[in-house]
């Protein structure tokens, strides 16, 4: 029988951490930040079909860096969990915190039980009524979860990017300012000898959770709309009648459709 070498649990964990950290640092970065009109996701991504940023539910978005097959796996699980809870209870009962918890448990279990941890770092973001009530959760390969107020960066050379982001982030930024800042942060690292570089608009994946919408708030910003947002201030879409959080008083209880589909009928006359 082959002799098994002894490895201390400490050593095993250290090796797994190192593997995951290296894998994540090799990839391109993504940043998430809240601005006056919602939550902005910007990821460096040369593919326009394989997304790093996605919709989970009405007011919840997902961003990830690392190995595609692994975070895609988690994204599907998140959509399934959110839809299952949404149909079992009500759309308003699906929260980012519950999702972050489930991801933390899942990543933690994979880290300790499987021989290879997931080489991913993910962000679960929930847009609130005000920038102060936005929730940004960072989940790392070992299942630890952190609440990151305001802004966060993941993947690649995170330290440099975070530095730029934290230095200039304000919660009352416009979308144009926020995209500009994200772009500046992402391009601040990775050039020749650690210098800044330029990133073309078509290498960015940009999406928002729009604070002022009812129902499904996730929108991708691509093509001409993205160039416009990068270049100059874009007047905010005429904010549809602002409804606080996901509560849609006019939505019939018999429907599981999002509130933006169920146009709110005017209050009846009686």
């Amino acid at each position, binding site marked *: 029988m082959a002799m098994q070498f002894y490895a201390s649990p400490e050593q095993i964990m250290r090796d797994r951490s190192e593997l995951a950290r290296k894998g994540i640092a090799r990839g391109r970065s993504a940043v998430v930040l809240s601005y006056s009109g919602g939550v902005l996701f910007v990821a460096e991504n040369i593919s326009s079909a394989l997304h790093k940023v996605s919709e989970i539910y009405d007011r919840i978005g997902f961003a990830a860096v690392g190995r595609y097959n692994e975070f895609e796996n988690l994204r599907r699980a998140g959509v399934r969990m959110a839809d299952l809870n949404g*149909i079992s209870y009500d759309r308003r009962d699906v929260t980012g915190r519950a999702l972050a918890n489930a991801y933390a*448990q899942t990543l933690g279990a994979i880290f300790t039980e499987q021989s290879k941890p997931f080489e991913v770092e993910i962000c679960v973001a929930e847009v609130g009524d005000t920038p102060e009530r936005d929730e940004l959760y960072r989940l790392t390969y070992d299942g630890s979860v952190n609440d990151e107020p305001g802004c966060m960066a993941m993947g690649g050379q995170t330290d440099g990017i975070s530095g730029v982001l934290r230095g200039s982030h304000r919660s009352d930024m416009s979308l144009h300012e926020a995209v500009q800042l994200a772009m500046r942060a992402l391009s601040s690292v990775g050039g020749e000898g650690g210098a800044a570089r330029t990133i073309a608009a078509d290498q960015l994946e940009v999406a928002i959770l729009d604070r002022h919408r009812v129902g499904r708030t996730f929108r991708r910003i691509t093509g001409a709309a993205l160039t416009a947002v990068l270049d100059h201030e874009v007047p905010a879409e005429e904010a549809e009648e602002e409804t606080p959080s996901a509560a849609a008083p006019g939505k019939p209880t*018999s*429907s*599981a*459709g999002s509130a933006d589909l*169920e146009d709110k009928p*005017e209050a009846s*006359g009686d």
Partner: protein
Amino acid sequence: MAAGFDPSGRLPDVFTNAGTSSFTQFLTAAAPELLPGRRPLPPGMAADIAPHATTIVALASAGGVVMAGDRRATMGNLIASRDIEKVHPADAYSLVGMAGTAGIGIELIRLFQVELEHYEKIEGASLSLDGKANRLASMVRSNLGAAMQGLAVVPLFAGYDLAANDPAKVARIFSFDVTGGPYEERGYDAIGSGSIFASSALKKRYRAGLSLDDAVRLAVEALYDAADDDTATGGPDLTRRIYPVVMTATAEGTHRLTEAETASIAEAVVADRMQNPGG
């Protein structure tokens, strides 16, 4: 809720595997008790145990489809609800209404709405209109056992087909029977207890290519005719101000007419019928 909780606390494998983009297929594995048609029923007829929802009409117009439903649910000779809502948006470009056992119908619509949204989120693209109709057909089919015991429900599905090349074919309507279907209808269709009267009225008045506003008016007229001759269909309730639910699906998406709009249309229809009760 979900079957097979993993002792480690992680999400069970059924959540994370790549298997399917369908929410109902996922539920089959994760929480089958949430699916209609999966519950064992005692033998015998059960038709009278729950309220029945009645008439829905749908019309194709030049700009898109219109779907309207009355607001009554009945239980035998009693009125179970005066303000039930039986027409809902299925997704951004399609509408669904139901007739039959109300509870199962509501569950079917809820599941169908989540089914379409779920596919869209998982795959990053919407199903084709035909794909949606086929999916709904299989969901109706799964209720066949209960339908045979009197708990039947049939939906009506209509949508704006974004993939259509011919502008005359953008507005499409599908009907179903308890064994599934789907059957694509030409121009208009009605389901439920008052459907004979509603579709007779539509047969005489419907013209291909009519405008969206005319189609809305015609839908409300057809429901009036159904309520005229079928006790299980409710007419516009002017005293309580309860009017039919009218929804449209056009290139701009789905839209529900406001209470004020449906009120003025329903009042106009009633005023005309005061002059000529036959319409």
